[in-house]
């Protein structure tokens, strides 16, 4: 029975699990969260990523760079229609091309399923890009030529691209239940909506749309697969080696022990490289068919087409407020554009959108309606801060509009509706630094200098705006880590993660160095091989690599240190309880002259001494029950709008983030800056543009898709860490990678309004929209 305690939040009493007892380690070791004012040597300091040098010098080897003896290259023939049945498929010309080693299609590999409704190779394609056939050849050039020799005869069927059109009666029906996922909208409700609106002094309703943002990873999606002697080895461009391994074993009906997945460096993931896609299975099948390693990477066009994207959303927000700003009711509806197939993409299309509306502001009467809609397109997916980003781009502009209508300062309105309780489950947050984030951001930014209207200089208008930041934490899944201490005193942290690029390696090294109290340079982190690492995290998504793995690493380090102290006791010939360790020296408390330095003790380890190595084991336990982890922040920007060109330039930004304890303040800053820039891209530039008639993507290349360049980023991006003392885990971390994206859109749109007096509710805010809005406002 867990130890419970009572806490009072906002005047109410809640019964929650006691964190110090809940966080017991292996064998009952107490490992309570670090104290609020605890002095730490390595944690909370700036350390560069261990791989930074390799990356900038080009030494880092990505899955894309893997070259194996005898390796063949694969290309895939894809559907050029959005909905069609294959009447005929003729592969003989491709097979005859010199250098071609295998051609697979539904004709000879039709039994390999992809999921419950489709095979890997389709005979009825539902979107442009669906896999039809694959070729393995001596060179990529030959494979590409061969794919073009395959003749397909299609029976073209009606398709639908537009999300509203797909909802109309008479639209081509893409699934047995219709075009709304599983037949009906998903609705969440609390309180009494009608009563809430009746009590309101002011009611406001607006509609916002967000664009399909791509992950746009520099390293394209793909892998090298080698099926040899019944064992499948895959060098994968992935966010998680264990998830890829488990899903490949499942899809190919292989024992988990016969699949090994490796990843040393990753050229971008942002949510698009979790789990497996068809290309993984195709590469494995081609390797099985040819006996050779297969390299299958999508090209840039295919990467845009098929690697998933943030969904297009249409969000209607209606809310009632009291004169003082208190929310009385929110009625929220989101329509999200999904793909053709009934897969996880439908969850990201709309059901994932809306949690900030449900949670961020105190509102007793609320309804959220999520409408994911099938269209003949590829599926959306999780894209850095999925759901919350789309929702906050809308909600935070809405709050700005409401503040103006209520004649309140935007921050005052938000504070009026502040809540320290997670409303859907009525649980208090472990920590909520939102209030502190507003205060710190406002102070650093100079928010009080905000004027209701802009400053004008020629065609240039300047304005400032802000947005809240919100991301959901996790409950703490099972996570394991190992810490090995070698005879020479070096330490190896062994974790099952890929290398998403956020610096988890240096963070884990810091945690181990802190707990054991050894210099950071003595610690190495082994990772990126599913066969040699424990299950630390299935895949790095949800901003939880540190949050999940960090506590397990600390526990493993503590376990190793316990064993080391026992070894020191043996060396010093004193009881274990008599040993103390500080500054690299073990000493007997009772006889201070009895001492041994770190390496003298570790020197007793290893086969030459007739001993085992010292291996500390650690696992992460679930968060203490009864409370919720959420992540907060506030972002403020100043923009300059050129009313002649329609260009919007963000001049400076202040980003205050509450992500619990910052473990590495250098990588912390880069994460927040990078996330904000990705949000800026979505706010001003990025969107998947489709030909409305055919569904063909028109801007499926880096140049026209248009991520922000160095010139589009503000010179000043100031990061202000808000250090809340979170007790959900033993390292006080909450998660950081995704929340910085979520605030950019609202802050920029609100600053644009402050500068020009026009509202643009349709992201991205491109020059054409700005010019049209300005013209309409004249």
């Amino acid at each position, binding site marked *: 029975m867990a130890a419970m305690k009572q806490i009072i939040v906002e005047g109410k009493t809640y019964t929650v699990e006691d964190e110090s007892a809940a966080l017991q380690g292996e064998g009952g070791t107490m490992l309570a969260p670090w104290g609020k004012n605890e002095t730490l040597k390595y944690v909370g300091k700036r350390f560069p990523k261990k791989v930074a040098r390799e990356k900038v010098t080009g030494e880092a080897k990505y899955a894309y760079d893997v070259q194996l003896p005898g390796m063949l290259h694969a290309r895939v023939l894809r559907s*050029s229609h959005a909905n069609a049945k294959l009447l005929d498929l003729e592969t003989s010309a491709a097979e005859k091309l010199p250098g071609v080693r295998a051609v697979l299609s539904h004709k000879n590999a039709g039994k390999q399923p992809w999921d419950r409704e489709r095979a890997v190779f389709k005979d009825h394609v539902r979107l442009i890009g669906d896999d039809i056939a694959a070729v393995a050849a001596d060179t990529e*050039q030959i494979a*590409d*030529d061969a794919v073009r020799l395959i003749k397909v005869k299609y029976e073209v069927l009606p398709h639908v691209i537009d999300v509203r059109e797909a909802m109309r009666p008479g639209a081509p029906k893409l699934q047995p239940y219709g075009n709304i996922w599983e037949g009906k909208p998903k609705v969440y409700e609390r309180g009494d909506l009608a009563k809430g609106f009746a009590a309101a002094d002011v009611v406001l309703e607006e509609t916002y749309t967000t664009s399909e943002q791509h992950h746009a990873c520099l390293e394209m999606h793909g892998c090298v697969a080698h099926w040899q002697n019944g064992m499948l080895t895959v060098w994968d461009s992935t966010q998680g080696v264990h998830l890829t391994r488990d899903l490949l074993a499942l899809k190919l009906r292989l024992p988990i022990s016969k699949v090994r997945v490796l990843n040393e460096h990753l050229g971008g993931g942002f949510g698009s490289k979790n789990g497996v896609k068809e290309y993984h299975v195709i590469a494995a099948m081609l390797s099985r068919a040819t006996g050779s390693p297969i390299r299958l990477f999508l090209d840039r*066009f295919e990467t845009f087409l098929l690697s998933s994207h943030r969904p297009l959303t249409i969000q209607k927000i209606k809310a009632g407020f009291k004169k003082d700003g208190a929310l009385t009711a929110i009625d929220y509806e989101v329509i999200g554009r999904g793909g053709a197939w009934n897969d996880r993409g439908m969850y990201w299309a709309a059901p994932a959108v809306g949690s900030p509306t449900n949670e961020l502001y105190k509102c007793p009467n609320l309804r959220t309606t999520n409408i994911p809609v099938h269209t003949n397109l590829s599926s959306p997916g999780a894209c850095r801060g999925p759901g919350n980003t789309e929702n906050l781009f809308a909600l935070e502009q809405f709050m700005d509009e409401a503040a103006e209508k209520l004649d309140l300062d935007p921050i005052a309105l938000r504070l009026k509706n502040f809540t320290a309780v997670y409303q859907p489950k009525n649980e208090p947050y472990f920590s909520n630094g939102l209030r502190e984030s507003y205060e710190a951001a406002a102070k650093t930014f100079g928010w009080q200098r905000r004027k209701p209207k802009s400053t004008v200089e020629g*065609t240039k208008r300047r304005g400032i705006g802000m947005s809240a930041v919100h991301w959901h934490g996790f409950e703490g899944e099972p996570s394991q880590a190992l810490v090995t201490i070698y005879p020479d005193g070096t330490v190896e942290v062994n974790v099952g993660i890929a290398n998403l690029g956020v610096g988890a390696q240096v963070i884990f090294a810091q945690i181990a160095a802190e707990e054991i109290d050894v210099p950071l340079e003595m610690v190495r982190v082994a990772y990126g091989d599913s066969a040699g690492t424990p299950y630390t995290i299935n895949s790095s998504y949800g901003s939880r690599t540190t949050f999940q793995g960090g506590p397990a690493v600390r526990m493993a380090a503590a376990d190793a240190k316990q064993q080391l102290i026992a070894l020191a006791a043996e060396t010093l010939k004193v009881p274990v309880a008599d040993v103390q360790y500080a500054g690299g020296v073990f000493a007997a408390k009772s006889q201070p002259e009895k001492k041994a330095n770190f390496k003298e003790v570790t020197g007793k380890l290893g086969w030459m001494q007739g001993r085992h190595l010292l291996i500390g084991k650690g696992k992460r336990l679930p968060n203490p029950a009864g409370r919720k982890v959420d992540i907060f922040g506030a972002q403020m920007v100043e923009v300059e709008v050129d009313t*002649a*060109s*329609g*260009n919007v*330039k963000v001049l400076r930004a202040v980003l205050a983030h509450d992500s619990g304890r910052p473990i590495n303040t250098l990588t912390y800053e880069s994460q927040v800056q990078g996330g904000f820039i990705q949000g800026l891209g979505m706010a001003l*530039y990025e969107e998947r*543009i*489709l*030909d*409305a*008639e055919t569904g*063909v993507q*028109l*801007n499926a290349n880096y*140049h*026209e898709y*248009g991520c*922000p*360049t*160095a*010139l*589009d980023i503000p010179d000043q991006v100031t990061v202000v860490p808000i250090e809340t003392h979170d007790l959900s885990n033993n390292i006080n971390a909450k998660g950081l990678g995704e929340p910085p994206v979520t605030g950019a859109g609202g802050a920029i749109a609100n600053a644009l309004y402050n500068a020009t007096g026009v509202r643009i509710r349709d992201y991205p805010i*491109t*020059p*054409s929209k700005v*010019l*049209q809005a300005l*013209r309409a406002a004249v």
Partner: protein
Amino acid sequence: MQSFTWINAKSIEEVKGALAKHGKKARIFAGGGDLTTLMKERIDTPEFVVNIGDVKDIHYIREEKDGLHIGAMTILADLAEHEAVLGRYTALAEAAGAVASPQLRNMGSIGGNLCQRPRCWYYRGAFHCYKKGGDFCFAVTGDNRYYHSILKGELCYMVHPSDTAVALLALDARITIAGPQKEKTVKAEDFFIGPRQDVLRENILQPAELITEIVVPTPPANTRSTFLKTRIRGSWDFALASVAVRCTAKNGVCQAARLALGGVAPVPLRVERAERALAGKKITRELSQQAAQLATAGARPMTMNRYKVDLTRSLVEKALLAVA
């Protein structure tokens, strides 16, 4: 990319020989920024690619008595930073500096920049349009928000992508063409042709011809020029609209002006009506606005690009005030 034969020419004679031999099957590689993209997407599938990067006598910027002589392989970065170009042919330096990104300006040549193919995404995508021998312009009924015309569009509604072309029109440049016949020189504005004249190409070059030199005449005294471009991002993007203007003025009174627009028509477009309206008058805000109106008179925006009319007018007005 379809396989091809690479021909590394060392002299103009070798280039001419290769072009004469392979005709329509050959393309000139003059930096390759555009050609390689077209080839990777298999929009263009030449069998022979003739590199002119190693041809010795076409990399130069020389100021002579009659004006500025520029070898066709001169890279854009050099033009953008050249002292004489910056000083007396400012619009050209500014246009060269506004092309794409630093990497592309380091690779891209002036000759190649003038011979770019359209950026229309239907042309660049899987659509069999006029430019590819089809009989439809998909942009008319499709998505025409960025790189499509508001002026002079017919059959094909592309916009000419070159920034330097716009500057060269305003600076009254001449383009020298070599080929099987005797070398010839044409005015910059006669080099470019619209879809009505030939929908399959954007300039007068025949398959066996190439640009060897560009000559910009020495501007009269009291002349200033400038190039302005609006694009979506601060770098890399093509012009949503651009303008180049050259103005000779005395005591604030315009004696002669040349004005050209980019990003709005299938050709870089000289707007003589606007030029005439300026001659002999003092350039004021009002006059600039009038000229801007005249420059865009007759505009027929497409379904999604009406904003380009306002944008172009603002640019013309700003450019005129800058050189007045």
